[in-house]
């Protein structure tokens, strides 16, 4: 970077009439791929032959930039200190726009909130929804944005929580959504009777354009289908999994190559195991297997299994068939494989957590329930409730119940934090990603954004 103007590594700016002076070292933090980096690059500052009678010292110019000086001050401060401080009178959107002009939006994003920690979360924003009806699912994007599925459409928000173009798959009922990466969203939708729609498709998260429609063929004959839960294996040759229901009892789990979008495999449902109706799929990296959970109320008997695609078999399975006799019994409503892939965590209608040991053969140990009677009492007062959901992140376990999200830490999963907001009703879904937690409320379609503040100065 050329340090000629100003001399001594000092650089002078005139931004919208206001003078700034800084050093090349500070500006180096912006990186070469930013407007400021290019501005000071030697290719744009080739030595000018001094005109006749014009002494070279007078060439010590300042850079003029025709932009908002207040925002420039904030961004220059960001480059100097690495932390973002926005004065109260300065709208965030304005700052974001200016940051985009200078190519510093990524810097702002990185300084805006800190690394995710379930015990230090703070409510950053509540975004009201406009869609009618109940929300189905909310998913966090790897870059801090999110998308919310309502009925037949999916509303997409970037990390600045600006809404982008909503996407839909022929306006069919959306069963599940997932981010393939920050720029691509997968939608699994229900097939409507008499129409060859539904199925699964990938959309651009930025423009909302349809990118690819995933097909299922049985015996090389393409068939329409209803896609249920989605899962993604990002390692090796990336693969996409979805539970599928075909019209002619072609139930099972479809597998697609994420690079080409072509169908790679289809795991047909073995008798007695419900795969096509599965509520939850999760790829277990270390084990190399797919967890498939079919849960109440879709079926009366919950079943969880691990599918081994190389051996084409069920490597491990558990079912509560025969144990749940009455409605009072504990029913598994959601399941998640823990990070160490040694156990599956489940939750029941009383918000009890339970664990299934994946290492013991065929789940013979049964569910080890950890009773939380204290929490159960609150349950009685709730007017309308949603089914609880589970998530894990960085060794912490999260579960939603009614209008709050509980955070459990440590090897014994001790309750360490509770996230609650006063209105919006029960939480019907939540998701963690991009160092943020998004919680979708049952009423009014409002969703909350929880994030960890940047680390304290000292």
């Amino acid at each position: 970077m050329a340090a000629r103007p100003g001399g001594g590594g000092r650089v002078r700016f005139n931004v919208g009439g206001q003078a700034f002076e800084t050093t090349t070292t500070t500006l180096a933090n912006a990186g070469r791929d930013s407007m400021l980096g290019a501005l000071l690059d030697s290719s744009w500052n080739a030595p000018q032959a001094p005109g006749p009678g014009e002494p070279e010292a007078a060439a010590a110019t300042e850079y003029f930039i025709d932009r908002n000086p207040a925002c420039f001050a904030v961004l220059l401060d960001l480059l100097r200190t690495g932390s973002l401080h926005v004065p109260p009178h300065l709208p965030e959107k304005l700052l974001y726009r200016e940051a985009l002009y200078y190519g510093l939006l990524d810097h702002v994003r990185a300084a805006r909130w800190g690394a995710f920690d379930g015990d230090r979360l703070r409510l950053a924003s509540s975004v009201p929804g406009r869609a009618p009806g109940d929300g189905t699912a909310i998913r966090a994007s790897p870059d801090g944005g999110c998308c919310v599925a309502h009925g037949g459409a999916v509303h997409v928000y970037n990390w600045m929580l600006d809404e982008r173009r909503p996407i839909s798959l022929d306006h069919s009922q959306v069963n599940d959504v997932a981010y393939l990466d920050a720029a691509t969203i997968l939608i699994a939708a229900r097939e409507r009777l008499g129409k060859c729609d539904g199925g699964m498709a990938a959309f651009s998260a930025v423009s909302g354009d349809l990118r690819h429609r995933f097909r299922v063929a049985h015996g090389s004959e393409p068939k329409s289908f209803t896609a249920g839960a989605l899962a993604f294996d990002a390692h090796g040759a990336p693969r996409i999994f979805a539970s599928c229901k075909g019209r002619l009892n072609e139930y099972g789990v479809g597998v697609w190559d994420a690079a080409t979008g072509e169908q790679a495999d289809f795991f047909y449902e073995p008798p007695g195991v419900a795969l096509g109706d599965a509520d939850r799929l999760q790829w277990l990296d270390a084990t190399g297997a797919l967890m498939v959970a079919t849960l109440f109320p879709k079926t009366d008997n919950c079943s969880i299994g691990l599918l081994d695609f190389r051996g084409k078999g069920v490597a491990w399975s558990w079912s509560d068939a025969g144990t749940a006799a009455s409605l009072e019994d504990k029913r598994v409503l959601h399941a998640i494989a823990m990070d160490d892939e040694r156990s599956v965590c489940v939750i029941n209608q009383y918000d009890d957590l339970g664990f299934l040991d994946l290492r013991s053969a065929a789940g013979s140990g049964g569910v080890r329930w950890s009773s939380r009677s204290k929490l159960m009492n609150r349950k009685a007062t709730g007017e309308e409730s949603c089914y609880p959901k589970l998530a894990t992140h960085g060794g912490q376990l999260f579960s939603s119940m009614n209008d709050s999200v509980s955070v459990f830490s440590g090897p014994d999963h001790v309750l360490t934090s509770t996230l609650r907001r006063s209105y919006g009703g029960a939480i019907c879904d939540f998701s963690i990603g991009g160092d943020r937690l998004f919680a979708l409320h049952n009423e009014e379609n409002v969703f909350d954004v929880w994030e960890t503040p940047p680390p304290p100065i000292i």
Partner: protein
Amino acid sequence: MSSQKKRPARIEPFRHKVETDPKFFEKSWKKLHDAIREIYNHNASGLSFEELYRTAYNMVLYKHGPALYENLIKTMMEHLQEMRRSIEAAQGGLFLEELQRKWDDHNKALQMIRDVLMYMDRTYIPSSKKTAVFDLGLELWRDTIVRSAKIHGRLLDTLLDLIHSERMGDVINRSLMRSTTKMLMDLGSSVYQDDFERPFLEVSASFYSGESQQFIECCACGEYLKKAQRRLDEEAERVSQYMDAKTDEKITAVVVKETLTNHMQRLFLMENSGLVSMLVEDKYEDLTMMYNLFRRVPDGHSTIKSIMTSHVKETGKSLVTDPERMKDPVDFVQRLLNEKDKYDNIISTSFANDKGFQNALNSSFEYFINLNNRSPEFISLYVDDKLRKGMKDANEEDVETILDKVMMLFRYLQEKDLFEKYYKQHLAKRLLSGRAASDDSERSMLVKLKTECGYQFTSKLEGMFTDLKTSQDTTQGFYAANPSDTGDAPLISVQILTTGSWPTQPCGTCNLPPEVLAVSEKFRAYYLGTHNGRRLTWQTNMGSADIKVTFGNGSKHELNVSTYQMCVLMLFNTADCLTYRDIEQATAIPPVDLKRCLQSLALVKGKNVLRKEPMSRDISADDSFYVNDKFTSKLFKVKIGTVAVQKESEPEKMETRHRVEEDRKPQIEAAIVRIMKARRVLDHNSIVTEVTKQLQPRFLPNPVVIKKRLESLIEREFLERDKADRKMYRYLA
């Protein structure tokens, strides 16, 4: 709608007039267009980056992104076309330089254009799935310049020509080559591969195919390999200098295929310089090169291995079956050892101690050593030779290494029990005649045999050593118990040998002279008195004696003779002339031994203490013997050897073999019984395999013999044949 007569009440939206300047796009684009021209003309110093960036920003902001992108392509194309014309016009050697110069210009300009359009790169391009500006510039360069009709072929030809002339020894501008291939790599690995690497490999293949054909016609194998090695090094160096590192592997494969793989057989089998003559002449350097080069060739090492193996087998076979060599067992074994040393050296210096080669060498030695069924005997004789007299000129360490080498040969033997037999005989001779030079070496050999074959193999040999030790003690005890008898009576030293441990031959006892007989009877009484329930048999054929003689001419000598010879000579104390028949009668020595004994006393020049009438070479029953009064010798002590052959005579050999065969029978039977006891029921073939496996460390049993033993066991009702399946045997408890 507006054409309708009756217009319903309608609220017109308030129209904002936001498009302030209708010429906004044209004006802005002109600014950028001019700037791009200046950039390509190296005249960018007058441009204001901030102004250009802001202009591009505004164009994207006001939705002119698509038009901006299209115009950018158009403008860039124009500049590239201009560059193309100038590159095409470059003559001869300037072509590459011009291409390089323009590429540098384009790269620099592209960098600046990208700076100006950075905002478009960030916002418009990701949402419209277009190629980013920099990559777009590379693609345009690729399609307009590198792959244009007039440049594409010329570029490739120029590069390949330069490489060819470098191969022929010319010096070329490597940095220019490097920057040109770097350009191709920058355009994407597929451009580099399609437009340069693949044709380069093809041209190289035909070049090396021709060159190797030419070399192989006129070069010896070693020389050819040197050239191939140099070419390989050159290509590796070339790649490191101005090509993608990934090409290294590919071009090496091409050179290896053309120069080595395609000519492998011919190179190895080359007359006078191929693999065999390298082995014969110990050309370590060439062999090392061959080993290293053919590491890259599939089947290369295995072919070298098989040629070496067949050569070793052939030379080994001619060595062990040469009747000339049989005459000197020590030399025979020494030659084997030399052969082994030679190939061990080759493998360690040239073949990187490759385990595969070592195994191949071992198996070929095993093959040819066992071609001669006298190998066990010869090896034992060699050890005998080394342990007997080798000590004088060799120190113990040398003997140790010799013994280690011998053990190597021993490992190759299939008939290890035969070796044991011979070794026992030779050891017995050494021990009894007191000619074992070093007790330590003897014991170290025993330890080696023990580690190789186990305790059983050497237990009897060890017994021999113990016998000697106790004999010494017993003799001392005898004289301590009978101290009075030291006067005139002969001194005896008795070796008490345990039956079974020693290779005793059934011997005809002879009549000992009365003086000796008296002492030996006294000893017998003493021994049986101390050890109850034992039996002593005199092995007169194995003893020796020192006797003092005064000849008729007055000369006095001390003679070292065998027991038989002593018996004969003692007879002459009382008689002057004895016929053969007399001697035979008096001594009762078996005729064969007696004849041999008389031969050595009467017919060996310089040691003829007896005189025979008539003076013929052979001894007949009517010959008469006298004391040779004219006997003279420079030495006081005279050792009378026995006319004996070190090597076994033909009948003895047959006998040893027969004995070995006999000894094997119980071993085979024991093995069969062991196996059957464990398995209860087994078919014939499995028994043969198992027995062979069990006995392998000692010898290789013949299947026919195994079958005979099985039959014998059936006869003795250890086994029976299965009634349903005649091939199955059943163990009878």
